[in-house]
Structure formats: structure tokens, C-alpha cells
């Protein structure tokens, strides 16, 4: 019997262009939502700032403040300003929103980025090793333990760590990202930043890592049953190479998705942990801005977080193709 081998057509450039156009349209829709949704919040900046303040306003003063702080640029102008990288001025600080955003971003990246990378790495390696040792006591114990850990919310882990390691043992600081205005050398400053990072980072790792472990282990179990693994074993390849170069690579796909989505939600993802440890990040910035109805800040943070989600999903599209070339040819 002759089999006609029909080559898969390589995905055309217009196909990729189509993906990019689709994502661009989605980005435009998100820009519109980030412009319009925060405006639907009840209350405004003047109400939030002055309603239970130490000063009492007359009608004229209130009207004057409202006129001063209410900005109605219209969507067209908002879009035009965005293109010029002008995110507007914060009502509360009367400083550029970009300054606030980039002031908080490094702390979020440090905390969330490190937590995501570490929890992915640890989850991946332990997941692969557990799946390889399937039905062993160690694997069963790990699955049980991780299932329990997965069920414990960040807020509980955070408070337990805080009470034990900050209050009782006093090994780590209870709040902040570093000792404020400490007059120390750069090296000592890095040490104090790491010291302050320890508890929030551990909280997030304990929260993210069990999911990564369980997902990798499950994917891996499916993969190691595949015939190509038997072939690899029969060829006498070293077990480490079989595990990581052959099996784990194929089990990586769902973990990459999870990593991407976790990263996409980094702005709001660590809000609870940032609040518990008074850690300065984008989550806290957004929380405070919503409380104060500081619309330019809310709009900017919502917009940037939405665009990050989009960019990461777009990036994942391409990463999938690198990890698993079959996707390139999938229809």
C-alpha cells in the first residue's frame, strides 16, 4: 500500500499577521474598557478625599474642587495621549502616573517575578521526579502534602508565617520592602531587601508551587506512558536524559500556560500578600487609587495589566510553537 505523504503546509505569514491584528483589536477594546470602566465607579476623588476629612467644605469649595479634579478628555484624546505615552497626572499626588507606576513596578517584579520563577522551577523538578517515582511512598506523600498546601489560601499562609517568624522568632521583618532610609552600603541594602523579601516570597512560593507540582506530575504521568519513552529506555539512554530531554519537555506545555497566566496577573495577584506585609507594589498602588478614586492611576494600572495579559498570551502562542512544533501545523 502506498501512502501519499502530503506535507503540512507551513503556517503562512498572513496567518501570523492575522493573529497580531486580532490581538491589536483586542488591545483597542481593552484600552476602551480601561478608559470607561473606572468611570463607572460610584463616588469621585473629591468625595473620597474630603468626605470624612478634617475640613468641611462649602458648596462653592466643593464645586471648585470637583471642577479642578474632574477630567473628561474623551476617548479619542485619551487614546492620543496614550500613544504619546502620556498617562496623565494622579489626582492625589499631582505627579505623572508613569512615575507612580514605575516606582511600584520594580517591587512587584522582584516579588512576583521571583516567586513565579522559583515556584515554577521547584514545582517542575519535583513534579517530574515524583511522576518518575510513581506509586512510591515519597510520591504519595508529596501528592497528599501538595494537595493540602494547594488548598491553603495565601492569606492564611502569610499570617502564619508572620506570627511565627516575625513576631515569635523575630527572624524576619514584619513589614515593608527594606529598612526605610537606612544609611548603609549597597551590599547591606541588598541584604536588607532580601531579608524583607523572605516572608512574602515564601508565602507566594508556598501558594504557587503546589499547583505547579501537581500539574507537572499529572502531565508527566501521561507522557511517561507514551511509546517513545519506552523506545528511549530501550535505547539505553541515561534516566536523567529520558526524564528531562524526552518526557519533561512534553509535559511542560500546561506549566508554561500557568506560568504565563500567573505572570499576567502579577499586578493584582499579590495584592493580599502585599497588604499583609505592607509591601510596596502595583497591587497596593491600585488598591489605594481605587479607594481614593484617583481615576488616572486606576485607568493606567488597569490598562497596563490588561495589555500585559494580552502580550503574554500572544507570547505564549509563539512559545508553544517552539516547545511543541506540532502546534505550528495544527489546524
Amino acid at each position, binding site marked *: 500500500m502506498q501512502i501519499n505523504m502530503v506535507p503540512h503546509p507551513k503556517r503562512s505569514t498572513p496567518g501570523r499577521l492575522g493573529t497580531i491584528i486580532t490581538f491589536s483589536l483586542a488591545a483597542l477594546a481593552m484600552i476602551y474598557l480601561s478608559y470607561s470602566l473606572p468611570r463607572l465607579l460610584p463616588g469621585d476623588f473629591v468625595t473620597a478625599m474630603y468626605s470624612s476629612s478634617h475640613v468641611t467644605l462649602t458648596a462653592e469649595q466643593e464645586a471648585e474642587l470637583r471642577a479642578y479634579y474632574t477630567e473628561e478628555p474623551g476617548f479619542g484624546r485619551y487614546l492620543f495621549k496614550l500613544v504619546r505615552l502620556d498617562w496623565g497626572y494622579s489626582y492625589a499626588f*499631582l505627579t505623572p502616573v508613569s512615575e507612580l507606576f514605575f516606582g511600584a513596578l520594580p517591587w512587584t517584579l522582584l516579588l512576583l517575578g521571583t516567586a513565579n520563577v522559583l515556584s515554577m522551577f521547584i514545582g517542575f523538578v519535583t513534579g517530574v521526579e515524583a511522576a518518575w517515582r510513581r506509586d512510591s511512598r515519597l510520591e504519595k506523600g508529596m501528592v497528599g502534602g501538595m494537595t493540602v498546601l494547594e488548598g491553603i489560601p495565601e492569606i492564611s499562609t502569610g499570617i502564619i508565617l508572620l506570627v511565627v517568624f516575625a513576631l515569635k522568632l523575630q527572624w524576619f521583618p514584619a513589614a515593608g520592602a527594606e529598612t526605610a532610609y537606612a544609611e548603609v552600603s549597597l551590599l547591606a541594602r541588598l541584604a536588607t531587601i532580601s531579608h524583607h523579601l523572605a516572608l512574602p516570597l515564601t508565602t507566594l512560593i508556598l501558594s504557587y508551587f503546589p499547583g505547579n507540582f501537581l500539574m507537572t506530575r499529572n502531565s508527566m504521568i501521561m507522557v511517561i506512558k507514551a511509546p517513545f519513552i519506552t523506545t528511549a529506555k530501550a535505547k539505553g539512554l541515561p534516566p536523567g536524559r529520558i526524564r528531562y530531554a524526552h518526557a519533561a519537555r512534553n509535559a511542560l506545555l500546561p506549566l508554561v500556560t500557568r506560568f504565563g497566566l500567573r505572570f499576567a496577573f502579577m499586578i493584582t495577584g499579590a495584592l493580599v500578600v502585599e497588604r499583609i506585609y*505592607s509591601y510596596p507594589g502595583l497591587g497596593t498602588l491600585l488598591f489605594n487609587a481605587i479607594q481614593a478614586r484617583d481615576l488616572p492611576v486606576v485607568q493606567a494600572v488597569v490598562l497596563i495589566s490588561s495589555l500585559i495579559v494580552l502580550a503574554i498570551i500572544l507570547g505564549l502562542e509563539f512559545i508553544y510553537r517552539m516547545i511543541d512544533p506540532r502546534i505550528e501545523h495544527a489546524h
Partner: protein
Amino acid sequence: MRKQMRGFVCKLFLLVVFVIGIFCSVGPTVLAQVKEIRIADSKGDWGYPNPYRHYPRGPGYIRMSWVFDTLVWKDDKGYIPALARKWTYDPKSLSFTFELQKGVKWHDGRPFSSADVVFTINYFKKHPYLWVPMDDVAGAEAMGKDKVVIKLTKPYAPFLAYIGGVMPILPKHIWENVTDPRKYNDPRAFIGCGPYKFIDFNKAKGTYLYEAFTDYYQGRPRADRLIYIKAGKPLMILSTGKVDLANIKPDMAKPLKKKGLVILVNARGWNKKLMINHKKPPFNDKRFRKALAHAINQQEIIDKAHRGFGSPASFGLLSPDHEFYSTNTPTYVPDPAKARRILESIGYAGGTDGFYTKDGQPLKIEILASNITVAGESVADRDGEVIKRQLEAVGIHVDLVNMEQATTDGRVIKWDFDLAISGHGGLLGDARILNRMIMPKVTGSVNSARFGANKELLKLLKAQIAEMDITRRKNIVCKIQEIYADELPAISLYYPASMAAYNPKKGIKWYYTVGGISLGIPIAQNKMSLVK
């Protein structure tokens, strides 16, 4: 020669011993210089510390007060000189004369003078600073370099409390060319003549750094650096020595005291209160409001929602600790049976489900809960639950609604509510607080009753502001409290126990200011603690 030399060395040694002896003997009275003081609060960010950019709440004003001085100030005993060393009032010319301190410098080294005071008053008239009402100030005139006369349009009793002791003096040479003070974003916008120079505010971290102004006219401040940090766990940061001063919750007092910290307890100057929409039925009927007052058990709220930390509030708004408090203020003992009788007397009848009805309509009301508490902090609401149960016990069906604070505030301001829980301080400060919390023309506050139905009350409120004689003013203020408690446009519920703790090892004594700092801020961070 050797003998002479030996004799000289001996004398020198004796002289050194003598000098050291003198220093040791005066040692305990010389206050040691402290390297830095760290203060924490849970919010951190209170805006930039200048008059136009700090948030309009107590912690924002306090952060500014380290940088800018006022004419007079208050400490733990009462008014004390600040930029003015003496002041007098002349009733004939309706003017206050202030004799200013000599040798005062701004943080940039320029000399301070009466021209700066005159400039500040004119500037605040043109660009209002909302903490300082200038309506009753006609103008100011410099009488030489060290004297200034401030003229009033009419007698104004709270002048010191609301202007002299609150108004930060601005440097003329910096602000005279500033046309939009809110947007003035130059480092020079933070040059004052207060005890501390503003160095940094980190918005992301909610931290502030100040440095001692060594040329301060009242002497070098006690701590070289003053740092504010954001931290929501006062028990931990105080007990681990990370900060020197923080507001605490009452149940933290015991463990912190055990660790050697000093606990400060504030007088009753901040109240949680029940706002009533007296513009709509049935709340526009005074009898209904009285029924509410009898239905509410203040002590039960304190016991159940606050583990007993607090005390019942006066129905006349001013604190019982205030010098103008009226002992004749009507009170409403908790009496559900009496509340029911009042409701029945105004036409309500018991329904089958235990709740009252009138004209076939059930007596159903909504309460907006609130998370605000003393010193700009927030706390999960439990008061609403207790009040709901108390009102339902007398036959009023209650929907308790707990929304995000700005949403609640927006509804109260627009009169889109039935009852709303709120709270404010200033009850130990000047009695002008009564005008702010009662007068109908106030628009932007969720705490003001905005009540204009009783003409006599309005007349008395206007009269107390203009009464310069303290005894006569006290009589008027007492009468106001009595009418207010009878009308009940809002119901004061309780004074939460308000506490702070500090580390005494640094030798700094913190205290709560008499009547609160400035307009009555109930926070134990008086700058005089680091000055004298």
C-alpha cells in the same frame, strides 16, 4: 623645669577631672540627641507635606506640621508660643496683634519676617487652604519686622483654634510667584521654618524622611532624622523595636506594656456616630429619631463590637471631657419598650412578623456600615450588626449594607440613605466643631448632620462663634448641646478607646495634645515632643 612640667600636667589633669565632673553632674538634665525616630501607620501615604498637597486628614496635616510652623501651637497643657512669642486681642479694633520671634530662619537660610505672615494671609484668601477659614479675616498689616496685626471683619472666637494655631506660615520669597499652588511641584515648595526639613516622600512605599533643622529658632530638634514608615502590624513592629511610636488597638496595650513600652490613652475626642437622613420620612419626625435613640444601646455596641474598649457618647456631640460640655444634655437610656411606645404613638402598628407597619407599608430601613476609625485607620465594621439587631428588637426591619467606603460616602453626601454609620474627631477642640457638624450649608462632609430645621439652634451656632467672652460663650455652647440632643439630627454612639504606644528608651516623651493637634487631631505626634 621638670618640676614645673609635672605641676602643669597635674593641674591639667585636675582641670580635666573637674570639667568631666561638671558635665557628669549636669548630665541628667541635658537631653541626649537621638539619631533617628521612626513612626509607623497602616496607610503610609498621606500626600506631600505642604499645605496644598497633604491629604485633608489628620495624619496629612501632621506630616506637614514638622516642616511649617504656625503663629501659636498647642502642647500637653494648652496654647504655647510658636512663631509668635506674644499675642493680644483688641475688641475695639477687632484685631489680634502678634509679636514675632526674632532670628527665625527659613530652611533655605533666608530670614523670616512679618511680611511672610501678611503674605500668607493674603495668599490663603486668594488660594484657599481649606483647613483655615479666612471668611472672618479682613486682612493683615506688618507693624515693623517683628510685629503683625490681623484684623477681623467681626468678632471671631475660634481665631486661635482655627487660624493662629492651624495656619502654616509660607515663605513669601518662594510662593509669591506661584499661581497654581496645587500643582507647584518644586523642592522649594517644602521650605518652611518648622523643626524639620522635608527630604523625601516615597509614594510607592508610603515612607517620609525629614532631617532636623539645626537653625530652628526653638533649638535644635532632639532627633537628627524623623522617619515615617508604612506598617499595618503595630504590635509586631513595636515589640520588635522596628519603630518608636505607633497607634495601637486597645487589646495590644497589655503585651506591649509588658515589653516596656509606654501606653498613651487619649481623652474622648473621637466619636462613632449614626447619621440620619432627617430630610425624608420617617426620619424627619423628631419622635421617630427619639425612638431610634431609645432602641440603641450604646454600651452593648461597645461590649459586643469592641470588647468593652470605649465609652458611651454624649447625645449633645461635644465630649464630656470638653470644658464647654453641658451636664444638662438630654440622655436616652436604652429602653426598647419606650421605643415601641413612641413608634406606636406616631401611627405604627405591629405586623404579623414582629415588625411594624404603617399604612400597609412595612417599617423597613437601610443602614450603611462604615470601616473608619480613629487616626485615619480603618477597622472591619461590627457596629452595624449590633445596631441592626437592636433596631429589629423594637420592630424595625433593617437591611445592613456594607460597601466600600467611598461609595458609602458618595451616597451620604447625596442624601441617598436612611441611616449611615460614620465617625469624626475634633470633639475636644474648639466648639466651632458644632457648627461644622450641624450647619446645613456644609456640603462635602459625611459627618455633618446638615440640619437647618431648628432656627434657634442655627442662631445659637452663629452667636457662639462671635462671642469673645468665654463664660458667655460656654453658656451658648451648653444650650446648643441641649437643643442638639433634643433634636437628634444624628446620634453619637460611642468614643472608641484610642491609644498609642512608644519606646521610652530614646528619652522622647510623646503625648496626646490638649484638644488634639491643630483642629483637634487625636494623634500623639506633637512636634513639641522633639523640640523641648
